[in-house]
């Protein structure tokens, strides 16, 4: 019986140990050229990223390639654009070409790159028509027992199944704060007297890009249509892949529109964080205070432990006014650009991608002979509209500047 048990256990262990089946991937791919180029109508000239992509399953052979302007041909409506080597920057195996050109809707753009040992590539795209925003409406609503702003964007006409858009939502916060330096006590004027001078006013302007997704309440989780949150990071003319989201661009197909309307919520949670006075933005501060050069610090003698200094408390910063505004940047995307963006989103969020049980919707490339995207967009922006405003009253400011002292003046 014991032998039988051992036999069964061994058979079971053998069965389990063979569950993993390693297999070679040598023939999956060969070196190709990667290109990312997104000509945009109504926007600044974009750059083109070109790289030599190695097979994922071979080791990096250490080869580094060079690229010259003569290897690249960009033609617009059949006319070649002038390129020279001064427009090329290199970063490891990645090259950025800045052709410096503006595109108009309807332009047919073709890109060709010579391979030098790998396949030459080519790809084409057409700059889509300029999108139009008919109106942007803001409405305060209650969601999940808290206040949110519903943004309603209306286009001039209903969106068709073949229209693809991207939407970036910029929130601009303009905050004026007052810094009141602490003054040493002046007992000659009384036991608690202090003079709040000099006062410094700072204006901070920050612009952040927030998600324009439709979720606004936990109840929405039940019927989560994950495509409602499809977004990619689009910044400075390039799409970043991976989970990093710099400036999110929501991807909108006709599925997300109700006719000509698209709405989303700016959550009250975000509003709260904007109105918090303890903000610390890395954005321009007006007026710009000159930064004192930092003196080099003498090396500390390890023998003599430095006396810990009492941390100096910063001067209190008091927000006296703030204003949040919203602006929509609407992009009309060419078919191939939408497909590429969607794939970039799905590759990050399709947990079952590699299991072989789902459609292959997380991959896209329209580069013939290579990999990447040549897709086009056109962009329009709305005006800034006020989301919320706060301004401290003159009386409150005076109370801060001239606090009443007990029994004082």
């Amino acid at each position, binding site marked *: 019986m014991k032998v039988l048990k051992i036999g069964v256990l061994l058979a079971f262990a*053998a*069965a389990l140990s*063979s*569950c*993993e*089946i*390693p*297999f070679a*991937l040598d023939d*999956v*791919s060969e070196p*190709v050229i*990667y290109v990312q180029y997104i000509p945009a109508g109504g926007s600044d000239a974009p750059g083109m990223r070109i*790289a030599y*992509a*190695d*097979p*994922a*399953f071979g*080791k*990096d052979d250490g080869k580094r390639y060079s690229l010259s302007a003569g290897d690249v041909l960009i033609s617009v409506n059949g006319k070649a654009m002038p390129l020279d080597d001064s427009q090329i920057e290199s*970063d*490891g*195996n*990645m090259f950025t070409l800045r052709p410096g050109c503006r595109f108009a809707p309807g332009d047919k753009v073709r890109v060709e790159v010579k391979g030098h040992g790998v396949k030459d590539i080519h790809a084409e795209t057409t700059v889509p028509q300029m999108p139009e925003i008919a109106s942007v409406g803001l409405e305060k609503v209650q969601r*999940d*027992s808290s206040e949110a702003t519903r943004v309603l964007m209306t286009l001039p006409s209903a969106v068709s*199944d073949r229209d693809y858009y991207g939407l970036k939502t910029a929130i601009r916060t303009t905050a004026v704060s007052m810094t009141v330096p602490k003054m040493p006590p002046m007992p000659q004027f009384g036991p608690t007297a202090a003079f709040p001078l000099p006062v410094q006013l700072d204006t901070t302007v920050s612009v952040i890009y927030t998600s324009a997704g439709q979720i606004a*309440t*936990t*109840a929405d989780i*039940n*019927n*989560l*249509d*994950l*495509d409602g949150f499809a977004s990619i990071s689009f910044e400075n003319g390039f799409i970043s892949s991976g989970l990093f989201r710099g400036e999110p661009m929501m991807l909108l*197909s006709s599925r997300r529109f109700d006719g000509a309307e698209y709405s989303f919520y700016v959550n009250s949670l975000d509003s709260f964080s904007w109105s918090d006075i303890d903000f610390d933005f890395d954005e321009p501060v007006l007026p710009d205070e000159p930064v004192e050069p930092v003196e080099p610090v003498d090396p500390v003698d390890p023998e003599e432990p430095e006396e810990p200094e009492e941390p100096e408390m910063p001067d209190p910063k008091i927000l006296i006014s703030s204003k949040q505004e919203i602006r929509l940047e609407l992009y009309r995307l060419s078919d191939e650009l939408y*497909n590429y963006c*969607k794939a970039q989103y*799905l*590759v990050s*969020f*399709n947990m*079952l*991608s*590699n*299991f*072989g*049980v*789902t*459609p*292959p*919707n*997380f*991959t896209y*490339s*329209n580069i013939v002979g290579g*990999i*990447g995207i040549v897709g086009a967009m056109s962009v329009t922006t709305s005006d800034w509209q006020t989301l919320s405003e706060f301004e401290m009253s003159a009386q409150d400011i005076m109370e801060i500047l001239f606090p009443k002292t007990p029994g004082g003046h």
Partner: protein
Amino acid sequence: MFNRKHIALAFAATTLAAANLFGQVVEKRDTLETSYVTAVKEKMRNTTQTGLTRLEGDKLRSGVAVFGTPDIIKSLQMLPGVAAGNELMSGLYVHGGDGNDNLFLLDGVPLYNIAHFGGFFSSFNTDVVDNLDFYKSGFPARYGGRLSSVVDVETSEGNMNEYHGNVSLGLIDGRIQVEGPIIKDRTSFNAGLRRSWMDVVTAPAIAYANWKNGGSPKVDGGYAMWDLNTRVTHKFSPSSKLNANFYWGSDDLHAGINEDSDLVLKMNTRTTWGSLAASVNWEYKYAPKLSGKLLGYYSRSGSDVGYTFDVGTRSDDGSVASLYMDDDNICAVRDGGFKYDFDWYPNSFNHMRFGAAMAYHHYNTSRKYEQRNGLMPSLEGEDGTPETNTGGDGKAYDAFEPALYAENEFFIAYNFTLNAGLRLSMFSSGGKTWVNPEPRAAIKWMITKDLCSKLSYTRMSQYAHLVSAMYIELPTNSWMPSTPSAPPMVSDQIAGGLYFTPEHFRFNVEGWYKTMDGMLSYNGANAFYPPLVNWETSFTSGKGESYGLEVEAGYESPKLELTAYYTLCWSWRQFEAYYPFPFPDHNDNRHKVNLVGTWKPSRNWSLYFNWNYHSGNRITLPSHVIYFHESHSNMLFQAPYNTKLPDYHRLDIGADYRIFLPDRKQLAFNLSIYNVYNHMNASFAMLDTDSDGNYIGMAYGLVPIIPTLSASFKF
């Protein structure tokens, strides 16, 4: 050159040949009894159709039985031109099809859900199956509604004179089948019941666990599948017969945990899915050469998936504050319709079939939820009670699908037979109507007595779409009709071959070329619940192309049957949203080999084997990497399905031992071993690295050797 005498001789010869060809059929159709089946078998031998395989019930019930249960779909998966998809599932990817484009007919009634246990078993109980016709190409005009195949399953009529039956016990289920006369020689019944008994085994274990932990938490769970087939036949006269058929199959899976202490926890999941089909058909012989069959039916397929989750804490005063969530997802398709088919032999040269069909479909998929959060005071309403969020969405459609068809098989001359037909299919839903003429044609040339050549062309339309985010059969998958945003799918297929059937042997070579337009593929983030309200735009439209060659070689004698199948296949897809260029399909199995054998050394023993091999399924892995900043890298995907999984192969063996008892009773035991040499075949794969840091593919096998023993008693 030919003179009048030659022409007269040729005409006489062809007339005689035609009479010989159809004579048997006409003769045997004089009665509607068992000879009818024989006649159909004879006709099959002479059929002009390509891509047709008939499987008899006896064959389906014998052989290797996975988990001790013979399975129709797994038998079909072994045929050439068919890819099985994921191992052990009920996938049927025919000639590059999508798996959701097969027309399953049970006694003429279309079925939508054809699988139990998430796809492990098909819904067809082989105990009651008389035969099935499986068409991969050359579809006759009387069939329509799906792109890739027709699986026409006919259940057996009950014995008109004696009571017989069969009781079987397999590894996970038990079956009972009984047939016999209700009114001798006039009315009979045949009923089969199948039920899994896993829940019977797990119930005591769960009860013990609950007893051991004192009832808190209390766990619950179980799975059961069952189906019931009944057929009642009544003969009014030798030329008039009525059949009433009923099928009801269901799966029930539930699990839960309940605790009632300081912590209050109630968590229950429930999943039921299945199909119901009821039909009545009346066969009537209007004249010696004209018969008709009127079928009326109702069917329902669907699922209900949901959960309840209630977790909270009990305070000192006994009150409970909890987070409550309830979710329910219902998918259903209800069909009602009729078909009226006529068979007419106007003369010895022509065999006409014509008829009409009308189907009403009601598609209804809905989700609803209820949420209450008593754990967050901020979510309380003004009266202090938690706010309740309720809602949901759904889609419902009514659709009508009428069809008219006519086909004629006629002997032309010089041993040429032509089957030409037209099916006019229509579909109306949501204010939009589609009309699709579907021409069908097949021609056969009898080169010699044992050698013939066939060629066919068919067009098929499909008006139902499976809304699923995955390739596996999930209860959350739902069917939706064609809409303006998701128009009908259409396929065109040309097939042809050579068929050599000397005594005891058969050698068939058949090739096909098929295109599929309007195919839909899910293009959203993976979810068990695909979106409902905007389901049309969550799919992307594309096309498919498939071509290949099937070779079949077989030997058959009373004691030994050996068959070898080989398939060489290419299957492509082009979905612009995935990739602007053609790419291989998930089931692009370039080579497929099946070796099947049966040896009956004695009356008591039957031994079986089948060996399966096919090129691996395809998956998508990142294909390239870019190095930048000298130390950073970025993985890229170039094209879908760029990676082939390791090739698939396994050997199954089985043995039947029968003990013959008095009064034609029989006791039989079946031992089947699935995957005898325990080859773990890849079910899925991911990227991994080897010890040197190189990327490799790592596939995972899930299905080891599975020995099963089953017993049955025939009476």
